[in-house]
């Protein structure tokens, strides 16, 4: 009789055990749900490809020139996502368009002390849902992008995008 009682005691759960087990079960269920829903999202994994795109910063202070270099990694401004590698950098005068009050004609002139910078970068991308993704970032012409390289940060726009062969 005694040994039977002792056996029963061995497998008994106390109230705290039950609460903790329930918490662990809830956490496990939550994790399973997160992983499963993530898995469902990844069902359409898309087509892997390599892309080349250009980011334009239209008005850049001239004294900030020369801080983006070929080979630099391009990241989003937070530094969390890698979105490419710089293959070329060009600078041109920033052209200011206006209307001459004398002639009422559209005029184009160089804006003093400012330049336009274009950064060309290549990246391994995934094409899905009719959009190119690099490290979960959407890349499309016209989209604004806050980016950074090794020592430079700026805000620009994607002005070209094409698929290239590796």
């Amino acid at each position: 009789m005694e040994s039977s009682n002792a056996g029963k005691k061995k497998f008994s759960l106390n109230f705290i055990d039950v609460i903790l087990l329930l918490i662990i079960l809830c956490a496990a269920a939550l994790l399973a749900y997160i992983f499963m829903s993530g898995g469902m999202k990844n069902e359409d994994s898309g087509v892997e490809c390599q892309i080349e795109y250009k980011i334009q910063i239209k008005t850049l202070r001239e004294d900030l020139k020369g801080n983006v270099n070929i080979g630099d990694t391009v990241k989003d401004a937070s530094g969390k996502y890698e979105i490419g590698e710089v293959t070329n950098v060009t600078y041109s005068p920033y052209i200011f368009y206006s209307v001459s009050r004398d002639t009422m004609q559209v005029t184009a002139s160089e804006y003093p002390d400012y330049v336009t910078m274009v950064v060309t970068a290549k990246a391994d991308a995934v094409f899905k849902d009719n959009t190119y993704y690099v490290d979960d970032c959407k890349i499309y012409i016209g989209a604004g992008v806050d980016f950074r390289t090794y020592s430079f940060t700026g805000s620009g726009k994607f002005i070209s995008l094409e698929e290239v062969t590796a």
Partner: protein
Amino acid sequence: MEEKKQGKFKFNAIDVLIILALIACIVGIAFRLGLPQKFLEPEPDQKAEIRFSVNAVDQFFVDQFKDGILLYDADGEEFGSVKDIEVSVSNVYKENDHGVVEKMSHLSLQDVVGTITVTGLVKDDGFYMNGDTWLGVGQYYTVKTESATISFLVTGYTVAE
């Protein structure tokens, strides 16, 4: 009585499993927050000289910049010390009647350029001030002197060898 007391504090297998699960959770959270890397990283002890620019400010603001003054971040921690201050008349860009932008000198506003010496760490993707704030040319940072708050633009930097 003694035996009963001892039995009260006995762990069963489920208790052990639960404790292990809790420890695993704590370890997981620590890794997620990157705490192990923080402990493994070397102390931020590399010096860098930041070239900065503050544009179109009044004289009372210019007076804040003196060689040797200390700057502090928003938390009151030391940010760096200032040197090589140069003050010049600020430029104004104005469109003329022909639709062309001309550069002119402002009558009262001034530009300040100089150098701030900071301490940090070089990592794979750049220089991190105090080991945690990425330094970038083209970025604005806000710092404090003893009596003013100043935003400056980073126009370049050099890390000391």
